[in-house]
């Protein structure tokens, strides 16, 4: 039965197409001499018999006559016209083979080619359908229904008609001059005059008029022109996409210059990326860049090119931020509404930055609008945000204040678990930015940052932490090429913990870090082809490791003061970029670092060459306040070269060395919130990092695609690792808990980026390797038996795809695809019994891997209408994180309970996470 239906369907289809073919041919139906010399009535009969056509006419309209023509073959229509025009009878044919012969009235013969769908060649018809569909789906400005111009009666006998009217801006009521009105079907077009009026003569029938002008929104109107008539055009203001223009103008050209390993992302480019919980999170975006890894979802910080998290330095408008996440890793501590763009330097870090080996993550916030007051904000499942900005003095100075906060813990109320139900997690951040431009030569900027987190795990523990910072910057332009920049910044990080798991041993502990930095840079162009930069940079670190104290009267915990420390890191730097030849640029620089660890401090002195253990402690040296305990000097170098093969392709190479005088004390695989910072000191040497990079860069297909391929090798000395099982909490002598080793990393990164067009995004692949070696002649100073082991975040293969497709200005769909090899993990190697308890024994560190990571996210962004004159514009963002609901492993662990051993897999986000957020701003779509 099914076959039969299918067969008849096929037959039907064949008939249909065959018939269609014949219909379209009717227009060009030619007849031969065999029809010559026939009387009219016989002629009609013979034609109707042999061809699928029908004649419609009144025999009274004309007398009987005989057909005559000389040609061997002739168009039927021509024959009819030639013979009937003398009787004032018009000939009209339609696509169905109907031939109408009408006296005195012309049925628009011109219509026949367009009016009936079947006569339109299929490909063209489809296109028209699409256009129509677009009208309906995209904007309401595109009117789908047809406007009828004139009347049938008035148009009788005429092939053409004239449409005239005035083009008026519907919002202002002003007439629109110079708007072009084009008939998309015939291609005919006119322009409105200074009075806004226009006049266009077209064939009768359906037309699509496209109206466009510099400052009006393009509009398409479908009309059915029946006779000459009036059509006034109500138009809307156009939104000028200045922003887009700026972006493309400022787009970084990776091909030129000697900078390598740089990823610059503007928040505008990533605003449609699907993100978790409706939070546009720039740190999460950074993790989609090549060479950026993390231990797992929910881990704070990230790992750049195989380096530990403490080798990254975060700056937001020159303020260093020491904890970049809220809820310890689930959200970034930066409100994306105030962020303009961020740059991630993975290699060849500019000389003005020092003190971190692996990367500098530089965030630039927006400056307030100097022209008018505006505001923006949003609400997601977790946070609410509001940013206001405006001029202090028009065109001279401005302010911007951005606030973000969790607005309640309502989600926790849905949880049955009594501990979680009664727990709280709150966070917020505030950014203010004041900028002053008294004249063209000077820029002043004052910026403050505050982020705060409070997590209270009911009856168990509390974590509170704050980042706070402020910076003031002055930029002076001597002339177009030479400038001077001065900035002062202070940043503080404070962490406090209350642990009440065991009442009798409950404790509280605070620790804090201060970072005060001064930077002065001159950028000079002394002679042609040279760009000189020099300056000073000085940082004072103060760390209070805090006091452990009993939390309650019942607690037996003793007071333990872990002490304070301070160090000053100062640097002088100079660099030059020298354009040797048109296609060869060389840049080099030196940065001389001097780090002094100051008292007041009691310093342990251990027997020379022996491990730092209590047994080998020979003396305790006391240093007075501000007395230098230890000074380290180190020279950083940068050397880079660019060879331009042609305007669009270049090869670059770089070598650089950096020094780091501060490190993180954390013994957990994913950095836990209660880590501490520690300075290089009497017993701990500074960390030194070298990196060699080679890269290939190309702008392809008229700059539509940007391809970069980079390969690197890194070697870091004196990397601080924590001894197996060492206690970092109550430890006053952390040198006894740490070891220094070497880190080796190499990798290969390919990135293809498409910035413009309806489809934009990037795709990248990274192959990398990162391993640590801690060896020593003393067994107790080895980790993993003195053999190299993969670092915790070593994920050899990583693939990221970020794509955004704009259906229209208002609708866009975005997706991420993330894949990486599972992180390394240490599994037990054998099992033994102690009493009745089965006990696991582990050996080689990180010898196994957890299952691979794979995630797909999707989001849909819906912009509000595109009207220009409106109070506010809104956007809805719907996103699904982990669409496939894959239970990606965060860790795999073994546990013994009640005499048996079981292994478990822990996933953080084991289900698709759906979120909706609503964003708004004053002004229209394009307002900033």
């Amino acid at each position, binding site marked *: 039965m099914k076959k039969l239906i299918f067969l008849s369907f096929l037959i039907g289809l064949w008939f249909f197409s065959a018939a269609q073919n014949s219909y379209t041919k009717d227009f060009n139906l030619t007849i031969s001499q065999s029809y010559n010399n026939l009387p009219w009535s016989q002629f009609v009969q013979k034609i109707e018999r042999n061809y699928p056509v029908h004649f419609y006419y009144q025999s009274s309209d004309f007398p009987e006559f005989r057909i005559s023509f000389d040609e061997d073959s002739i168009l039927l229509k021509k024959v009819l016209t030639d013979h009937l025009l003398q009787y004032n009878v018009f000939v009209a044919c339609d696509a169905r083979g109907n031939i109408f012969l009408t006296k005195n009235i012309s049925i628009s013969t011109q219509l026949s080619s367009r009016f009936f769908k079947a006569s339109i060649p299929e490909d063209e018809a489809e296109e028209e359908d699409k256009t129509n569909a677009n009208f309906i789906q995209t904007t309401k400005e595109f009117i789908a229904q047809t406007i009828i111009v004139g009347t049938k009666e008035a148009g009788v006998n005429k092939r053409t008609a004239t449409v005239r009217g005035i083009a008026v801006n519907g919002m202002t009521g002003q007439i629109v001059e110079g708007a072009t009105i084009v008939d998309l079907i015939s291609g005919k077009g006119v322009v409105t005059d200074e009075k806004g009026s226009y006049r266009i003569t077209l064939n009768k029938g359906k037309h699509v008029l496209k109206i466009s002008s510099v400052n009006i929104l393009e509009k398409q109107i479908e009309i059915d022109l029946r006779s000459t008539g009036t059509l006034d055009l109500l138009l809307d203001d156009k939104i000028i996409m200045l922003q887009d223009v700026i972006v493309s103008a400022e787009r970084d050209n990776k091909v030129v210059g000697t900078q390598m390993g740089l990823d610059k992302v503007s928040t505008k480019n990533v605003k449609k990326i699907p993100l978790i919980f409706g939070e546009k999170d720039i740190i999460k975006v950074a993790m989609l860049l090549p060479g950026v890894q993390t231990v797992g979802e929910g881990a704070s910080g990230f790992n750049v090119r195989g380096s530990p998290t403490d080798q990254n330095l975060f700056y937001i408008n020159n303020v260093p931020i020491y904890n970049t996440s809220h809820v310890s890793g689930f959200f970034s501590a930066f409100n994306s509404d105030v962020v303009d763009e961020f740059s991630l330097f993975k290699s060849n870090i500019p000389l003005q930055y020092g003190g971190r080996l692996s990367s500098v993550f530089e965030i630039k916030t927006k400056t307030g609008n100097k022209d008018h007051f505006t505001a923006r904000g949003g609400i997601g499942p977790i946070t609410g945000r509001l940013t206001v900005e405006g001029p202090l003095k028009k065109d001279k100075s401005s302010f911007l204040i951005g606030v973000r906060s969790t607005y309640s813990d309502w989600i*926790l109320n849905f949880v049955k678990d009594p501990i979680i139900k009664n727990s709280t997690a709150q966070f917020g951040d505030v950014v203010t930015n004041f900028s002053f431009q008294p004249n063209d030569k000077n820029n002043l900027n004052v910026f403050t940052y505050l982020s705060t987190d409070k*997590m209270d795990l009911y009856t168990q523990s509390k974590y509170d932490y704050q980042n706070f910072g402020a910076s003031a910057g002055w930029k002076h332009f001597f002339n177009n090429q030479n400038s001077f920049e001065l900035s002062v910044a202070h940043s503080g990080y404070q962490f406090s913990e209350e642990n009440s798991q065991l009442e009798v041993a409950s404790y509280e502990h605070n620790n804090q870090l201060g970072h005060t930095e001064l930077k002065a840079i001159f950028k000079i162009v002394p002679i042609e082809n040279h760009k000189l930069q020099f300056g000073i940079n000085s940082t004072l670190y103060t760390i209070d490791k805090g006091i452990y104290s009993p939390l309650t009267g019942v607690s037996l*915990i003793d007071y333990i003061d872990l002490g304070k420390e301070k160090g000053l890191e100062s640097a002088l730097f100079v660099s030059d970029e020298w354009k040797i030849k048109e296609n060869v640029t060389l840049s080099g620089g030196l940065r001389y670092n001097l780090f002094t660890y100051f008292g007041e401090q009691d310093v342990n002195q251990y027997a020379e060459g022996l491990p730092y253990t209590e047994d080998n402690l020979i003396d305790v040296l006391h240093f007075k306040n501000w007395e230098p305990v230890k000074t380290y000097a180190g020279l950083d170098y940068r050397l880079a070269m660019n060879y331009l093969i042609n305007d669009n392709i270049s090869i670059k190479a770089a070598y650089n060395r950096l020094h780091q005088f501060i490190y993180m004390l954390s013994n957990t695989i994913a950095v836990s919130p209660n880590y501490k910072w520690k300075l290089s000191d009497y017993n701990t040497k500074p960390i030194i990092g070298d990196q060699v990079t080679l890269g290939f860069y190309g702008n392809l297909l008229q700059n539509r695609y940007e391809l970069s391929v980079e390969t690197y090798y890194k070697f870091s000395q004196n990397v601080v690792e924590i001894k197996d099982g060492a206690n970092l909490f109550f430890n006053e002598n952390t040198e006894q808990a740490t070891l220094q080793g070497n880190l080796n990393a190499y990798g290969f990164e390919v990135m293809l980026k498409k910035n413009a067009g309806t489809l934009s995004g990037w795709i990248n692949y990274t192959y990398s390797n990162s391993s640590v070696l801690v060896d020593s002649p003393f067994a107790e100073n080895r980790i993993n038996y003195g053999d190299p082991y993969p670092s915790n975040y070593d994920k050899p293969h990583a693939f990221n795809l970020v794509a955004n497709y704009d259906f229209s200005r208002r609708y866009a769909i975005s997706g991420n695809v993330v894949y990486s090899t599972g992180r390394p993990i*240490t599994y037990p190697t054998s099992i*033994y019994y102690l*009493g009745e308890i089965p006990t696991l024994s582990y050996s080689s560190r990180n010898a196994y891997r957890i299952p691979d990571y794979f995630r797909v996210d999707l989001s849909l962004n819906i912009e509000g209408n595109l009207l220009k004159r409106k109070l506010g514009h809104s956007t809805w963002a719907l996103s699904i994180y982990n669409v496939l609901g894959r239970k990606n492993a965060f860790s795999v662990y073994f546990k013994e309970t009640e005499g048996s051993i079981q292994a478990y897999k*822990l996933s953080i986000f084991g289900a698709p996470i759906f979120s909706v957020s609503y964003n708004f701003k004053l002004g229209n779509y394009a307002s900033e």
Partner: protein
Amino acid sequence: MQANRYIQLAAIFSLIFFASSCVEEYWPELSTNNDQLLVIDGKITNFPGPYTVKLSSASSINEALFLPISQAKVIIIDNQGNQESLTEKSPGTYETRPDGMQGIIGRSYKIKVELNSGKAYESQLEELKKPVEVSEVSVEESWQLAGNDLEFDREGYQFYVSSKRADIPQTYFYWEIEETYEYHSDYEIIFLYDGKPHDSTYFNPYRLAQTLNEDTLFYCWRTQNIAERFSYSTEYLSIPTVNKLPLHFIPFSDERLKQKYSILVKQYTISEEAYTFMDKLDQQNNNQEALFTTQPFQIRGNLKNIEDDTEPVLGYFLVASGSYGPRLLCKAPARIRYNNTKCTADTSVYAITNNIRITPQESLPLYFTFVYFENPDNSMGEAIEALAWVRQDCLDCTRKGGSNIKPEYWDW
């Protein structure tokens, strides 16, 4: 557990309506290579001997086995030159003589092990410190909250220990808990088959013997060590004392609490090294389920190969001075009801005769019970009485590992 909740908090907080963080059982593919490391498990205490030392080799991760090491020479030596060689009582288990060496407080002890292969191992001398007295052992009703979503919150007893103040500020404690519980057979023994024919009756056509005395296999007491490690250090405390430190937890659903339950706490004072060893094992076992975990590593004990100190040796030879805590006796609250017996009585002729037929002579006697149950077919509600076959461990409580001899302290 705390840290796991922390993940949940963060994850739930981050989500809408449901927690998606999850834990599932997962056994990764592991190498079956076994490095066959030497394992030592033993101790010398101030309690009277004999002292036991077990030698074994670690087994493959995929199969937990005690792989004894036999024919080793094991010697315990004190710092005054006394020593005693241990004899192998069963494969891998070595013991001192009952009248042999006694742990004396203030002396230091070490162990020497020489394997059949010729490899020799030795521990460092560790002092047998002065024991610290237990001041209190207590129990409280509490809820144990599920550590992950595979578990459930459970209500039960949480046991605690407190000690008197130690003389030394840095005292390291280690506890062993011996539990004793009473349990009953599910059915009483009424008949038994002893291989001889007896008089048949209406209820006993099988000619079984009928018990005349009280069923002595109905009440049993089992004593065993709890398979959990407890250790604590006073290093960071202002007063060197243990105050209500949580020990083990038993849910009310556990059969051990069905009748009466008792614990005897043995509180040991150990060396810092031994404490560190225990603490690391504990941490490694309990902290892996969290978001922020430390890197697992090989935890070595105090035994070292004399010639190659890089050879890993697992386990520990403890030098531990102990004191007993007051015995704690308890019983599940009256509101807790137990009714889930896994034993079923079978009154069918087949079950009875077949079990008699298949039981070998040396396994006799075979016990039977007598059951009363409602007859579903009898509208008068008359009960049926019948002789029934029941799995033997449901009748003979000693088959479940306990003894039918009541401990002296049990009447309370």
